[in-house]
């Protein structure tokens, strides 16, 4: 723990604290949020900050604090879906390509190149056009778009490891490739996968927020930070900035925290390898 704290540094620990608060907020939303995030009355719109409504109310009279707390759920769930799928498929593709090499490696690399050609958001929009707007559709489409990034990074690392004695030796002993890959290769590239996932988490959060902002992700009246930025933009111009600003800040702070932790983890992983 002490070693972790030293490697994270003060800012890293603050970032971890922020992530912890956001995750706890998302998990405990039903307990923490004082109001239903989807219910409000226009007669209560644009209430200022008060003991009753800590961050005021939005244009539909909904409690902004409750929407922020509940919004953390979809805002974290979406990127989580993206990084989990990305990590699983990206790693599998990368390790398969590295292990077999030759034609398999070339074929998989070309497929990844093809996926690279599509901008992430465009791919997500295409999927949404076909399957309809929802968080799940947006997250799955983004996951597909992120797989090449993850696969390439893992492949380059695994390629180096592939020819090292701890991999070659069991291979010469006739141990099946799948076993070597899972037991030996995967653990040695795992820190890189975790680092990549944390960095991707931040990117995915921003892009999913952008999709929700465009009305293609989480749908009203559900709470989501990107959606809140979108909903509040007119209120912002009309002198009621709370909804957009606070939701925007939540995205920025969370992404920065996750990114910083990811960066520190990356440094730690590199340090571990050197050791």
């Amino acid at each position, binding site marked *: 723990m002490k070693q972790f704290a030293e490697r994270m540094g*003060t800012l890293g620990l603050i970032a971890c604290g922020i992530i912890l608060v956001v995750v706890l907020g998302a998990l405990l939303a039903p307990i923490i949020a004082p109001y239903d995030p989807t219910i409000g009355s226009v007669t209560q719109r644009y209430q200022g900050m008060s003991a009753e409504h800590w961050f005021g109310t939005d244009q539909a009279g909904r409690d902004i604090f409750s929407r922020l707390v509940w919004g953390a759920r979809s805002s974290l769930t979406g990127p989580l879906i993206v990084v989990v799928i990305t990590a699983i498929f990206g790693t599998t593709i990368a390790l398969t390509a590295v292990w077999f090499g030759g034609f398999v490696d070339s074929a998989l690399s070309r497929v990844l190149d093809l996926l690279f050609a599509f901008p992430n958001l465009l791919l997500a929009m295409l999927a949404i056009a076909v399957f309809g707007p929802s968080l799940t559709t947006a997250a799955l489409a983004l996951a597909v778009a992120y797989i090449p990034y993850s696969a390439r990074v893992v492949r380059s690392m695994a390629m180096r490891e592939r020819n090292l004695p701890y991999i070659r030796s069991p291979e010469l002993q006739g141990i099946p490739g799948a076993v070597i890959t899972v037991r030996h290769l995967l653990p040695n590239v795992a820190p890189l996968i975790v680092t990549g996932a944390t960095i991707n988490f931040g990117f995915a959060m921003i892009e999913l927020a952008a999709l929700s902002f465009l009305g293609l992700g989480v749908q009203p009246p559900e709470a989501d930070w990107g959606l809140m930025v979108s909903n509040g933009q007119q209120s912002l111009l009309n002198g009621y900035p709370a909804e957009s600003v606070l939701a925007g800040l939540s995205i920025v702070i969370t992404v920065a925290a996750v990114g910083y932790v990811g960066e520190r983890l990356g440094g730690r992983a590199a340090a571990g390898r050197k050791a």
Partner: protein
Amino acid sequence: MKKQAIAIGSILAIALTGCAAGTSSDTSSSIDTDDLLTTTPAATGELDLVTWNLPFGEPASIDPIKSFNYPENTVVANLCEGLMQLQPDFSIEPGLAEKVDTPDDLTYIYTIRQGVEFWDGAEMTADDVVFSLGRHADANEGSYWAGGLISNIASIEKTDDWEVTVTLTEPDATFNSYMVTPAGTIVQQAHREAAGDSYGNPTGQVMCTGPYSVGEWDQGQSISLIKNENYWNTAKQAKTTQVDINFIVDSASIATALDTGAIDGSYDVPLGALPTLENSEAGTLYLGNSLQLVAIIGTGNGAFADPAVRQALMMATDRDAIAATVFEGTATASRSLVPNNGWAYGDSEFTAGRDDLAETAIDIEGAKKVLESATVDITQPISIVYPSERTYYADIISEIANGAREIGLTVEPEGVPSAQFGAFFSDPAAREGHDAFVTYNYMDVPDPLSFLRAIVGSDGSQNYSEYSNPEIDSLLSEAAAATDESERALLVNQVQEAAMEDLPWIPIVDPAVRLFMADGVTGAPASFVYLYYPWAADLGASGE
């Protein structure tokens, strides 16, 4: 490290200070309909250029027979003219017809105005009139106005050099009023035939007689209207040489453009732009008499298919609050499916008929009682579809959901992209699986008979739930045949009363026309005539 902490602290402080600024609650109330305007102050001078905006976007076509919505009609109204013309006070005056005679309730004899020239200098003839009216019945032309009104036409004949006679199959007292719309708009036959498939688009354009012709049409950006120096109606000659109409749809951009003077004016100012424009020093926000209605349309599916559920929902919904807040006080709660003052005849009868209808005040206990007579499963959620880009609909549905919750119903908003939402009005398959959808509707002509007929008539063009009431159908036919306007108004009142019982649509609010014009520009009508009246011709200098 300290610098980083200070920076983060500063950002948070600025953000929270900004948030704290929004501390006022909305206390505005609905506008008094007596305060709504018909016109804005008349122009006292001429202008070289006025920049306008279409907040609903670019017209898909300027062919009159394909003009059936805000963008197209707002432009075409300045280019092409009808046999009759709607006036800002909702009266109907002769247009390209000098007069109309109705020897019986099936025959309309139009005396065509002589000396009217198209933009190319060719004189308009009775042949052009017969051709133009006949286009609606030609399946190859694809008129959006084909159907009810047009299918009731038995013949269109040139009965003299300057006379065209239209004979109907069944009496329809609203027929002549529709000659103010594209159903009665005249285009040049020769140009139409020469243009082929490009007719109405930026290449083929149109050839009409209006006070403006088409200048440059920069697709996706703007369309320019150029003053017709040879306009036949010298009393209504355009006061502005060129009107550039932009196609900005983003609410915030519109607010900024109007507030900074980048654009001189716009009808249908977005609701989100109102707080900015109400206090703008760049111009004035005018609220005008309207023929518009915001309503919830039933599809005939789910719990919403039960009239008792619809009636209870209407009673439980705080429509006054919606008018005061979502519409920033620029609307009034709807008392009827017919927008307030939406009539050009029978004022005393229609006013009395409206006064007899239930008040708009919220009535939870009454709604609960009505709901007891529902025969459907009221535990099933009611989905109301809206175009997700227009967030004010979500606020309206949210308020409906609040009332619904009070009486034990569940209402859920369902946002769909605008492109998909449009199909709800034209494709029954799109409505399947949905219980209701929102509409920002309007009366084509100031005649409650035509509007109610479209909504509650068995074969009405806006009857989306296959609603059928033989008593209403009979009253509609009787009213259409009534030549006495008072008698017709009384019959229409009976239709209105029955319609408000069954409520195939739930009326929510009657929005006022929202018109903004920059200082120095004036004259545009404030009432809801800009779809069928050459509003741009009235634009001019205010003399300030």
